[in-house]
């Protein structure tokens, strides 16, 4: 039915199967859209946020998808600036995943603010001292860059490519892509960093605050570093997942292993920096404000020291060790385990830097406050996931995402 749109030389499932999958994901998407409309029409009282949890599930999701979407800028940097040519075979997918993550992040922000119609105030009345201002500017600009990176991919659709103008446009855009990759890397450095800075500058919150250099707390650098380390893991994770679902090999093993190896080095060095940061914070920063490390991990029903161990050791040191060894990278199960752990690790880090910050009591006569999201919050958080699945399905079916697919599946 839609065979004229499918790239030449590749096999896709029947249109009926494809439409059914789209409908299932679309159902979830509609559920999310319904919740989103409820929030926009009735307000943030539809959530379980409160005056203690001003930042909650959405901001975690926002930080989470931005970290996971970091694969786009870092893979682009490696491919176009550093010159790792093999990565051209995975860069399209990295861009697509990045595009989904960043468009989701912007949507989440639009839902999260109390007065969505005033969202533009962040640009108009910008406070240059606020990390959130930097996030807004760099995030929006980088989304523009990702759109520019995604457009040539759309133009390469079999039918669109037949139009000479679009064909030439796509070609010319590819020619100058290095400039956008460099711009993307520059912007990402700042918005990933400033997202880390959002927590690190909270000097009224001893759990979040960090020392730093000039105006940047250490979390600024740790967030950028972790996004560069863990983002490509998510790209590889989704690639592997796509391969499992479609039953096809889409990217050659040497490409996967190269990105996994670079990710491993980034993760290993990040984890060392994270351990040093945690140690310094626990032994100097927090005690200077009257807190022992254990104060942040006790007297509450959820946040125990386990969360620190899971984040740093199980989802940091272990996946880094796997990715750094040739055997770990070549073993499919080990690799997939490492990628999964890495994604969980960075999500835990972002959770801790948002929700645990809010939970920890600062005044001596207050207690820990726990929070459980409302269904509307859950639905609007799942919404981007459903949207992402739909966009991946459509893009995979109609666009030449994987240059090696034909060769690997003759």
């Amino acid at each position, binding site marked *: 039915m839609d065979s004229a749109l499918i790239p030449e030389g590749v096999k896709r499932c029947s249109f009926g199967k494809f439409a059914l999958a789209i409908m299932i994901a679309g159902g979830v998407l509609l559920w999310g859209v319904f919740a989103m409309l409820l929030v926009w029409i009735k307000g943030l009282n539809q959530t379980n946020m*409160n005056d203690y949890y001003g930042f909650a599930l959405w901001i975690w999701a926002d930080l989470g998808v931005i970290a996971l979407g970091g694969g786009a800028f870092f893979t682009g940097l490696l491919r176009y600036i550093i010159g790792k040519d093999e990565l051209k075979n995975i860069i399209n997918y990295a861009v697509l995943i990045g595009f989904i993550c960043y468009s989701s992040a912007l949507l989440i922000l639009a839902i999260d*603010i*109390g*007065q969505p119609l005033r969202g533009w105030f962040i640009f108009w*009345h910008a406070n240059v001292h*606020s990390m959130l201002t930097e996030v807004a500017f760099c995030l929006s600009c980088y989304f523009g860059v990702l759109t520019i990176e995604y457009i040539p991919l759309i133009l390469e659709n079999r039918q669109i490519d037949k139009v000479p103008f679009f064909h030439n446009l796509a070609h010319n855009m590819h020619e100058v892509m290095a400039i956008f990759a460099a711009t993307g890397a520059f912007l990402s450095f700042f918005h990933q960093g400033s997202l880390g800075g959002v927590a690190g*500058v909270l000097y009224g919150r001893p759990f979040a605050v960090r020392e730093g250099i000039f105006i940047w707390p250490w979390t600024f650098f740790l967030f950028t570093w972790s996004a560069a380390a863990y983002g490509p893991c998510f790209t590889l994770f989704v690639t592997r997942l796509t391969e499992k679902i479609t039953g096809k090999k889409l990217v050659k093993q040497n490409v996967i292993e190269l990105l996994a190896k670079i990710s491993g080095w980034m993760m290993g060095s990040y984890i060392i920096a994270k351990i040093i940061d945690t140690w310094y914070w626990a032994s100097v920063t927090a005690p200077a404000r009257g807190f022992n490390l254990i104060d942040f991990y006790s007297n509450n029903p959820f946040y125990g020291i386990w969360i620190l161990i899971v984040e740093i050791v199980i989802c940091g040191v272990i996946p880094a060790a796997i990715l750094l060894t040739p055997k770990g990278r070549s073993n499919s199960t080990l690799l997939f385990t490492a990628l999964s752990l890495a994604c969980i690790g960075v999500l835990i880090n972002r959770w801790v830097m948002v929700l645990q910050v809010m939970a920890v009591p*600062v005044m*001596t*006569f207050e207690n820990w406050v726990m929070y459980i999201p409302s269904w509307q919050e859950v639905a609007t958080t799942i919404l981007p996931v459903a949207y992402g699945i739909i966009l991946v399905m459509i893009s995979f079916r109609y666009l030449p995402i994987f240059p090696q697919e034909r060769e690997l599946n003759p």
Partner: protein
Amino acid sequence: MKEEGKHKKAKKYGMVINLDKCTGCGACMVACMAENNVPFKEDESNKLDSITWMRVYKLTNGKSYPDADICYLPRPCMHCEGDHGHSPCVSVCPATATDYNHDTGIVSQIYTRCFGCRYCMGACPYHARYFNWWDPVWPEGMTKYLSPNVSARMRGIVEKCSFCFHRYQLAMNKAFVEGRSELEEDEYQTSCTQACPAGAITFGDLNNSHHKVNQLVKPDNNHGGRPMNPNAFRLLERLGTNPKVYYMSSREWIRRAGDNYIENEGQTKGQIKSHH
């Protein structure tokens, strides 16, 4: 006239709350809500989403009879100065919707500019900032009793104690009409100060040595306004927020409850000594 021509020293309005006098009656909370058109819900039992610019906390020393002791601690916005006006909330607001006024030391909230990102709430360690989760609903006829000097707030934005800034503006207007540029101490007082039946709250210019607040706490401006009176303290002094709300108590455990200390620490930290 010679005085008039000189560049006037900036004011630093602040509050001193004597916790030994506070009975926890809540009159300050009621006065604040009435004065500032603070909205309320039908059911106010969930304190996590109800708005109380001034909130009275109950503290206990955790001991059993006969050593048990309690204290009520009223907590308005601290109007932190931070480092040169970079108070925790002002520096983080992305839309400049909250501002540090260097003439008065008051941290303002611009309701029409706030777009409800709530970053300031996350930044404030005192939980002095509140979000309007709902549009205000006033009981029938009550709109006639709202203060015309304070704008009512809409759903989706943050609000907080303003040290009754409208009263400052009214007092300044009056002074201007009378050809003055300075206010007398009693010309600008917050509603909570006036409502306190025990006289536990004192309000005035911390920079003015003739004002009671200055005399009570003796702020050390070389150290961010830290009180030199050994019975005075500020909440979470160690964080460096430099609040302009001071507390006083003759009881050591209360002074110590104002900040966090790691175990066995505190004998020499600040002016607060451990009672352990």
